């Protein structure tokens, strides 16, 4: 019998497919639908202290081998989004509150709010490739990062995950400082900085010009990052980047991931993708005589 339940530190998941931040998480209803569709956990969109409209359209376009977006962290602010999260308290699926900020104080107050609202864990978005003063500027500075993580850990009792970027050279150093700071898990990877230029008008298609590249094309980049992170730290890793099928998820497990997040595949395969991927994982494990996800985690280097 195949058991696909998994755990990320203290957090128990009935299945390893999580909804990635920024996908179908506008409100309680959209997140509820992803739960109905079988997501093992939900990560909210990234929330800041104040409401933020994000960038003008186009904010999302499809590319030949992936998806390019520059939303610009649109969100109603922590107070209003709290109402949405509270509505999900009834569900038995873990809700992970994704937050972004410019400094430790912002992250701390956001994390405290998330805890009040009933989130089951916090995901620190320190890797958004297209939001000035937030995201990458924070995520590539080990000292600032360490300060943020440790202060958040001091002020909330929830597990704290840190989502990292592939757009940095010193990934090992970064995740080690995250581990030292007491984080409970690493989420890898955020999107890859990219651009599409429209030839007819000779201008970048996205209003923000550059954006984050996700989807099928970036899977090999994500797998590599997860593998490298697994060599550098002992923390559980949540793999994200181009996961569309059960075999994609298994590749991430073997690279060292304990769970995966699914985003662009909601476009490729519809909201049913969570159930489909879980079924595919079970079938593959059955055919290859695996019984637990833990047997797969890190298999590529163990």
């Amino acid at each position, binding site marked *: 019998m195949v058991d696909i339940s998994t755990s990320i530190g203290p957090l128990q998941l009935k299945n390893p497919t999580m909804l990635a931040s920024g*996908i179908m998480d506008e409100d309680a209803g959209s997140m509820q639908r992803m739960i109905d569709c079988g997501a093992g956990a939900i990560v909210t969109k990234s929330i800041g202290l104040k409401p933020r409209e994000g960038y003008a359209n186009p904010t999302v376009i499809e590319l030949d081998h992936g998806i390019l977006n520059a939303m610009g962290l649109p969100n109603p602010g922590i107070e209003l989004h709290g109402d949405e999260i509270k509505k999900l308290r009834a569900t038995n699926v873990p809700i992970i509150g994704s937050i972004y900020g410019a400094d430790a104080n912002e992250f701390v107050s956001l994390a405290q709010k998330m805890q009040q609202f009933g989130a089951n864990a916090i995901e620190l978005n320190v890797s958004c490739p297209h939001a000035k003063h937030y995201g990458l500027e924070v995520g590539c500075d080990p000292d600032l990062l360490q300060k943020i993580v440790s202060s958040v850990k001091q002020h909330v009792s929830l597990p704290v995950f840190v989502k990292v970027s592939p757009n940095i050279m010193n990934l090992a150093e970064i995740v080690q400082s995250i581990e030292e700071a007491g984080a409970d898990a690493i989420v890898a990877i955020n999107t890859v900085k990219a651009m599409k230029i429209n030839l007819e008008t000779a201008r970048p298609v996205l209003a923000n010009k550059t954006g984050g590249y996700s989807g099928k094309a970036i899977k090999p980049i994500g797998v590599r990052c997860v593998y490298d992170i697994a060599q550098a730290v002992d923390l559980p890793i949540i793999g994200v980047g181009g996961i569309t099928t059960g075999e994609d998820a298994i590749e991430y497990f073997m690279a060292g991931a304990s769970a995966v997040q699914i985003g662009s595949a909601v476009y490729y395969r519809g909201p049913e993708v969570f159930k489909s991927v879980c079924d595919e994982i079970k079938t593959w494990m059955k055919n290859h005589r695996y019984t637990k996800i833990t047997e797969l985690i890190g298999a590529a280097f163990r």
Partner: protein
Amino acid sequence: MNQPIITTILSSFEEATDIKTITFRYPGKITPGQFYMIWIPGVDEVPMSVSSIKQDVKGITFRNIGDATQALYRLRKGDQIGVRGPYGNGFTLTGKRPLFVGGGTGIGMLAPLVEQARRKKLKSTVILGVKTKDELFFEDRFQQIGATVLVSTDDGSVGYQGFASELAKDIIKKERIDAVYTCGPEQMMRSLLSFCKTILFQASLERYMKCAIGICGQCCIGRGLRVCVDGPIFDGTTLKKVQDFGVYRRDAAGRKIPF
């Protein structure tokens, strides 16, 4: 590929005060009720339901209200726009005696559907609801299609004075209407729905959109119904369960904006 394809504007016609129809070459099928994402380079990209379908030439009808529509309004024949789509589910024309109720610019996107009804040889009645005479458009067009056209204005400057939904209420009874298709202000559509206990009802909803491919969640209503993919056309049974129908929409930041 969900990426804007550049095309040039073939015509720009002022239908009424601040209301224009622009046409452009964009091959491919589109069902009445479906929409395109229209990119005005350097300004914005907005969803626009199709209001005319003539082989490779498609048209959209809109009001000059925001930055995007203002820019669109100013574009002339020969100017470039980007188009991607079509998106959404579109109407499914069932029933033998349809009533079409358009409110404001919602009138525009009903035209291709009424043309479809004509091809199906259905006796069609169209109600055009506007605030005042100056905002009325497409009256002739619907007449040419062969539909019975009724007009309602808030100020009574032409036709029935009052809400289109009220006018519709009578017609539904008198004409033994068995299906209502509507696009317009959500409160209008909501009261219209309340008059359609037993008969078919399809309404086209409008929400702020970003991706239009069903992933960003911006346009979700109810329990995660994506107006861009699961809509924009929803039937009465579905809408009765959607608490936000006619109550609020969300702005770009995700804040609830009451109607």
